[in-house]
């Protein structure tokens, strides 16, 4: 996959919002002094009158977004996952979640691929935190195409949505004619019945790489792209468990409470099936290059393949 086109989904965020603005005039974009990093600067340059830089004051930004939503406008609130979720969980829970306000929370720099900034800026807990809020939709798109489609779907959905975008350039894998994005729906990207790999975000491309390695060993893995963590595509999970008998979840996130947990919850209640959860194993990251960190923490396609191979033996 070396010559595959790669785009960081934070770029898709900036461009996707700009594209959306051409069609709709009732939304604004808010950022907290990181517009050059979240790439909302792309939007700011084209629509400065609809861009609000709230400064380094995320708590106020989130609650202001709630207030703006009560007036019928749609705020897209953007910053790093650590600060637009981690720092302001309670503002989101009480001012946005509880009144079910139409706020779209967009993060970048989730997971260890945030890289050199180190553990303080590598949020591995955002998906879990957002998943626990009643009525919150949680989406982690896998590539540029899905990121843009998810932004549009989030705008069209009435209610709070959390979207996690990435800093690391990621292969464009959804450039197929039949691609479409629906909140709550996953997609099978590769057929197989020996084991099912369910991934989200930048881990989808790693799952595809992993499947290649496994195929060399004679293991046919089904690869499922699961961009919506909540509500989860339960039928796709159950079908995978039925067909493959073994399920692996892969996320660039703590294994506690997000995709892996969501899959386990469904399977343990509806179709008990062995599950291996791959992700950050209840630990912090560290400074380093994104690809090096992913490999070190077992989240590269090759390392995932080793883990899966050892597990299913």
């Amino acid at each position, binding site marked *: 996959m070396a010559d595959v086109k790669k785009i960081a989904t934070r770029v898709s965020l900036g461009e996707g919002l700009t594209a959306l603005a051409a069609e709709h005039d009732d939304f*604004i974009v808010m950022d907290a002094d990181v517009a050059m990093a979240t790439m909302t600067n792309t939007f700011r340059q084209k629509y400065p*009158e*609809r861009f*609000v830089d*709230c*400064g380094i*004051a995320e*708590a*106020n930004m*989130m*609650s*202001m*977004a*709630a*207030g*703006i*939503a*009560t*007036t*019928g*406008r749609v*705020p897209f609130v953007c910053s790093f996952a650590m600060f637009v979720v981690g720092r302001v969980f*309670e*503002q989101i829970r*009480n*001012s946005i979640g*509880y*009144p*079910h306000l139409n706020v779209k929370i967009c993060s970048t720099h989730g997971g260890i691929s945030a890289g050199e900034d180190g553990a303080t800026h590598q949020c591995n807990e955002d998906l879990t935190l957002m998943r626990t809020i009643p009525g919150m939709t949680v989406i982690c798109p896998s590539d540029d195409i899905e990121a843009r489609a998810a932004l549009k779907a989030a705008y069209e959905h009435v209610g709070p949505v959390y979207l996690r975008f990435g800093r690391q350039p990621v292969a464009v894998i959804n450039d197929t004619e039949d691609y479409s994005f629906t909140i709550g729906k996953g997609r099978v990207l590769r057929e197989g019945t020996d084991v099912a790999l369910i991934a989200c975000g930048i881990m989808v491309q790693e799952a595809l790489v992993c499947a290649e390695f496994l195929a060399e060993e004679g293991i046919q893995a089904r690869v499922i792209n699961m961009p919506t963590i909540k509500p989860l595509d339960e039928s796709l999970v159950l079908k995978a468990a039925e067909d493959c008998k073994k399920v692996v979840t892969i996320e660039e996130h703590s294994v506690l409470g997000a995709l892996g947990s969501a899959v386990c919850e469904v399977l343990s209640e509806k179709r008990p099936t062995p599950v291996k959860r791959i992700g950050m194993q209840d630990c912090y990251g560290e400074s380093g290059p994104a690809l090096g960190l992913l490999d070190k923490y077992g989240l590269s396609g090759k390392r995932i393949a080793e883990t899966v191979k050892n597990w299913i033996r």
Partner: protein
Amino acid sequence: MQTSNLPKIANEIRLNIIEALHASGSGHPGGSLSTADILACLYYKEMNIDPSNPDWPARDRFVLSKGHAAPALYSVLSMKGYFSHEDLLTLRKMGGFLQGHPDMKHTPGVDMSTGSLGQGVSAATGMALSAKLFGDDFRVYTLLGDGEIQEGQVWEAAMFAGSHKLDNLVVFVDNNNLQIDGTLEEVNSPYPLDDKFRAFNFHVIVLEDGHDTAAICAALDEARTVKSKPTCIICKTIKGKGVSFMENQVGWHGKGMTEEQYLQAKEELEKAGEA
């Protein structure tokens, strides 16, 4: 509405607060009673609202940032006809729509769900910002507790409102000088309040008697003339105002009344209403 009626209306709000809290058996009497005059001025004189159309997009907004004064807000809303007096007595009851802290999803007339301190003022700031961005004429009012302003988020909001010149925003501070653990100075002094808000680019009005409805209305009139700045009206108030045994008593921040206390409070307020 004549401003001369406002003291009587404030007194009626207080009576309703006491009745609602008697019915619920729990809640926050002290900080509800101290706000009654401010709410009377807002709902009976200042705000452009239509109780028969609570979601009217052009209405002025009120955000009770000190959400624990919900009994005061519910009282004035019931008096304005957003719901009945009978409903008011369902305060804090299971299955009811009058939650312990304001819930915009289920209570007509509540413009923002609040209760977690510091967040309401930001939400109000967002509403005011939205009006500016999209060219709406409505004004936004919010009421902070003086203990609440120990929350750092309040100053994030103040910085933003001042920086963005939100002259359609009025922030009241109910300065009764008591919080749960004692006086403000004993716990964590936020004083001087006026200089702080001034430093955040607010137009500041201090009312030495925060229960003087004529003064509150005059301050609101003044706020309408201020351009390029939000206004902060600091009302020096008495916690528990109107009920002798609750006045300035920190213990009445949040507790229920005995039957005897209820009857005494009611009698005192009814007598004040006849005056």
